[in-house]
Structures are given as C-alpha cells and as structure tokens.
C-alpha cells in the first residue's frame, strides 16, 4: 500500500519552467548534465563567485563548464556577477519591483510553483525587513507534485457527506503540505462516492498551491479558490465573508490569532483542515499553543505523518476522543 503512488511524469514540464529562468551560460551547462541527474534533480545552487552546484540523487555535485559533474573544485564552473544579475532579472520576469513582498520573505515562486530561495544584504526599516539588496545566492528548489498522495487517507476524513475537522501533525519534510494539497484536490474535484464541494485555501507561504501571479500552479481542484500569500487569520475571515467555502484549508497553524479565526470558521459551519509541526499527538499536547487548541476538541481527526515506511507514511489517525486510533498499522 502506498500513500505516494506513481509520480506524474512532469519532468519536461518542470525542466521548461526552470530552464527558462536560467542565464544562458548556466542553462547550457545544466542542460548538458547527464540525463538521470537532471531527472532526479532537486536543487540548483547558484552562488556568486562560487562553484555552480546541483543536488540530485541524495548528494550535491560541482558542475563543470562542459556539463559534466566533478568532485574537484578547481574544474567547476564559477558563477559570475553577470550570471546572478541576469538570473535575478529572469526569475522576477524583469520585474523585481513586483516582488517586494516575496523578496522580504526570502523567496520567489516560479511558474510551475517551484521556489527560488534568495539571500543578500537585508535592508531594515524600524526593525522590520524592508527589502534585500545585493542578492547573490540562489537556491532553485524543484518541487514535484504527488497527485494521489491523499487517496488513502480520504475515507478516514469523511462520514457520509460530512468532512471532519482535521489536523495533520508531522515533523518537517514529511510530506505535510503535499498531503494537504492532495486532500484539497480530492475534496474539490470529488471522487467516487463523494461529490466535490467548494474549497478555500489560505496559502500564507505559497506552498500549498504554488501560485504564480496569483494562479495556482498545482492541482488543487476545480472548486478551489486560493488566497495567495495571505496571513492565515485575516485570510480565513476573508474567505468566510467573500467566497462561502464549505471547507477551508490552511498550512501550519501556530499563532494565537489563528485559533480565533478557526473558531470563527467553525461558527460559520465551515470545515477546517490544517497542519502543525509536531512529531506526535503527545508532542503536540506539550506545546502551549497547540495544546490549547487541542483541548477545545475542535479537531475530529488527527493524522500523524512520519517516515517509518518512507517519507509520507501515514502513521496514525486519531478519532475525536484522541485516544482511539483508526489505523491498526502505518500505511504508505
């Protein structure tokens, strides 16, 4: 049983989106890398005056000007100031001014929902980060969508037509966002035995829907509306008022105002599906904020992710009393 069924063959799609944002010199080099390395590529690291690197198949490689990989630093292609300047123009579509907020947050989302992390010199204004200058380090992170990641969990989240208020707990990097995104797709598109309903996603960090100019780049479902880069609490209220969703989905709750917004949604009869960082239910109950929310018994299903059978394993699902488990063994 696998929670992560076959990956959609989107190699060409992401390659196009990534390659068109690279400066000519670097694009040519990356293009001529060995094919398996390109296919499994997870990151491209571009740092000014330092060697060009890619992360693929579990380790990083220096890249040589001829497109081969090497272990010797001396032969690697060294990224020039022109490269980074051009790259910045290309990832922002020549419109750096349109990315003020993104630059403040330290990343830019590309077409296709891939993210480029950036670092440079931050400019402060009254203790807040206003913008970043001299951006010289880029981490292009290729994100691959896993359609069907939530198929296995869906039966546990439903009772007839009713969808349970659900909290997904997981340590970082265990496929929490991937799972949430696919839950959204399932509920919005519907599946055999369930007719799709209107879903609202409040996507504070642009990770669930991977919006590019406000347009979701991921399959989040046909009846899904996305508020991109919107603070959760304000976004939930906006969603309730303006879009009348049946289900609101949001990522990583953790601030006191989030709790108030969630209660507001409950009062409006809207189902909340969200996630939080925690290794397990006990761990979550030990956290001040999470325990307060959990003690109000808002959530009727709590799913815990882990990696006992590989990344994205569904370890446990708790019912509303938080003691009975619905899974007798982990599934993936």
């Amino acid at each position: 049983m696998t929670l992560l069924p076959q990956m959609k063959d989107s190699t060409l799609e992401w390659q196009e989106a990534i390659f068109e944002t690279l400066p000519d010199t670097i694009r040519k080099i990356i293009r001529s890398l060995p094919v398996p390395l390109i296919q499994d590529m997870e990151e491209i690291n571009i740092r000014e005056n330092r060697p060009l690197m890619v992360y693929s198949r579990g380790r990083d490689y220096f890249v040589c000007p001829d497109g081969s990989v090497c272990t010797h630093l001396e032969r690697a292609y060294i990224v020039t100031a022109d490269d980074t300047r051009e790259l910045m123009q290309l990832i922002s579509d020549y419109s750096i001014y349109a990315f003020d907020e993104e630059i403040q947050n330290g990343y830019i989302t590309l077409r296709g929902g891939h993210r480029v992390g950036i670092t440079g010199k931050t400019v402060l204004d009254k203790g807040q980060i206003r913008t970043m200058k001299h951006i010289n380090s880029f981490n292009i992170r290729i994100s691959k969508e896993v359609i069907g990641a939530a198929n296995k969990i869906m039966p546990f989240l439903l009772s007839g037509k009713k969808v349970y208020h659900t909290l997904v707990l997981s340590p970082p990097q265990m496929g929490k966002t991937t799972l949430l995104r696919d839950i959204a797709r399932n509920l919005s598109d519907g599946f055999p035995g369930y007719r799709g309903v209107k879903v609202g996603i409040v996507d504070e960090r642009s990770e669930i829907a991977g919006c590019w100019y406000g347009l979701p780049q991921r399959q989040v479902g046909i009846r899904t509306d996305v508020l991109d880069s919107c603070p959760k609490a304000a976004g939930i209220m906006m969603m309730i008022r303006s879009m009348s969703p049946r289900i609101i989905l949001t990522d990583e709750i953790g601030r006191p105002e989030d709790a108030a917004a969630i209660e507001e949604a409950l009062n409006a009869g809207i189902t909340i599906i969200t996630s939080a960082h925690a290794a397990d239910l006990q761990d979550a109950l030990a956290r001040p904020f999470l325990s307060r929310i959990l003690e109000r018994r808002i959530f009727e299903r709590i799913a815990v992710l882990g990696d006992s059978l590989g990344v994205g394993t569904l370890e446990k699902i708790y019912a509303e009393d938080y003691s009975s488990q619905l899974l007798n063994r982990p599934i993936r």
Partner: protein
Amino acid sequence: MLIKLINSGVIVLCSTLIGLEISKRYAFRTRELSALQGALSRLETEIIHYASRLPDALVRIGESIGGGTGKLFHKTGELLSLKKKFTVSEAWCSSLEELKKELYLQQEDMDILRRFGDQLGSSDREGQVRFIRLTLQQLREEEQKARAVREKYEKMYRSLGLLVGIALAIILF
C-alpha cells in the same frame, strides 16, 4: 528660357521642401518628448498600482500610444517576453538603436533614455518610482528646451528654405 524657368522652379521647390523637412524635426522632437513622458507616467502607474510584469506593461503601453515611442516600448516588451537572453537594458538599448531614425531625438535625449534603460525593472517599487520620476523631470526639461529651440528655428528654417531657393534661382538665372 523655358528650361531655365523650370529649373529655377525646381530649385525653389526642393529648397523649400528641405527647409520644411528640417523645421518639422523640431516639431517632431517636442512631440516625441511629450509622448515619452506620457508613456513613462503610464509605466509608473502600472508599476505602483498593478505591479504588472514589465514585458506585459511595455507591450500594453506601446500598443496604446503608437508612434515612435509606442514602437520603442512595444519592441522592448516583445524582445523581453519572446525570449530570455536579454537583460532589460540590452533589450531597451537595442530597440532604441533600431528606432533611432523614427524617434527624431537628439543625443542628450538618447542619453537620458539609455540611463533609464539601465535601471528599468531592476530595483524595488520605490526605487523604480524614484527613477521614473527623475527621468520624467529630465525629459520635461528637455522638452522645454526643445520648445524654445523650436520657436526660434522652426519658422526660420521654413522661410530660409524658400529664400535660399529663390536666391539660388536668381544667381543661376
């Protein structure tokens, strides 16, 4: 005799036309400078209020403005959206170079525009706005100068053309 008369007529006509052509350049330059200011103001709006992508904004403004300025914006936008081996400043300068003939601009105007292209799209919103305003001011000053020059020389070249033609005709007659 008849041939001489025809010749003189042709000389006067040509000389007048040349005079007109030169005087028109003054009018065209002021017109172009004010069109450029209009285009930049719109670009400022696009950047502040819509945060549009630069290539789209340039094409849109170019289409609605027309003329040499419109072509300059349109061409730059097209170069950028078509494919990506240009930086903004490269695309801008190459369109500027290509449209030089149609723009009736002088060296100092071109310098302002070139400097503008260097900064276009490459800073945050505030920086862009500051830069557009600076360029607008420079263009406005140039336009004022151009108007003064135009008033002085436009009529002069027009009548000078005619007069030189007549003088030549008389001398050669």
